[in-house]
């Protein structure tokens, strides 16, 4: 039976996949980054239609910033960010295509042939979910959540340490000078 929920999930899922394909089909790098953003936003909308309200809103919020930052890095590091030269930036195309299709088919086969057991028809309402999630995060799963936080902090520090320009010591004065 086709319900309204199934329609929404199908629609947003299709949008997410379509934008995901656009990411690798367009030549303009900013378009590519924003296509990824809209793919993720469609996923957020899909979470909303699956009644995971907090996660949906969080996904929509997080990805906008992430992908915009992605966009500026694309412009910085690509040889042809505007895509006017229509440069081919791919390699091992056939292998990747086969790998992509095989993994898609395998995952769909698992989804179709596995017996998922009884399907729950009702989810808790959004306010209850948020309370439950908060209690879960600060209760049973606190250690995992804290670890995730520390890991992010470590990643931030490490990335910054790697990214800042190297400093050259000036032996005559003993002061640090930037290379550039």
């Amino acid at each position, binding site marked *: 039976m086709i319900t309204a929920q199934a329609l929404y999930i199908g629609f947003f899922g299709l949008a997410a996949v379509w934008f995901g394909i656009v990411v690798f089909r367009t030549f303009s790098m900013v378009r590519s980054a924003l296509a990824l953003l809209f793919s993720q936003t469609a996923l957020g909308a899909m979470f909303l239609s699956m009644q995971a309200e907090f996660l949906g809103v969080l996904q929509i919020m997080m990805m906008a910033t*992430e992908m915009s930052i992605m966009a500026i890095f694309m412009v910085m*590091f690509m040889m042809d960010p505007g895509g006017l030269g229509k440069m081919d930036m791919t390699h091992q195309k056939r292998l990747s295509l086969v*790998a*992509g299709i095989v993994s898609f088919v395998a*995952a769909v086969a698992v989804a179709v042939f596995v017996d998922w057991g009884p399907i*729950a028809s009702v989810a808790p309402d959004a306010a209850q979910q948020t309370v439950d999630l908060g209690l879960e*995060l600060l209760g049973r799963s606190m250690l995992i959540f804290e670890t995730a936080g520390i890991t992010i902090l470590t990643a931030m520090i490490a990335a910054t340490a790697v990214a800042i320009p190297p400093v050259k010591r000036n032996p005559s004065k003993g002061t640090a000078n930037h290379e550039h």
Partner: protein
Amino acid sequence: MSIELLLALITGAALFGVGIYGALSQTNLVMIMMGIELILAGAMVNLVAFWRYLHPDTPAGQMFVLIVMTVMAIEMTVGFGVAIARFRAKGSVEMEEATDLKG
């Protein structure tokens, strides 16, 4: 088997496939990271779908999604850190040219 769960899982599978294609076929580090983001997004859809249709009363299911978002953020941070360092040292982040570790 409900149609909603199936649709969500197919979406996840398709995003995973597109992500694998992207991560393997692109030559630029930033584009490869986009492929990885898509793979993680596919995982996230599956987690939300499993939470909603199989275990809606277990908030730990939602927590997994938060962890995947964390992983995405970490992947971005570390990836861009490496990209900046490599660009500064070699002048490009093209992976075809990155053969320094090849034996």
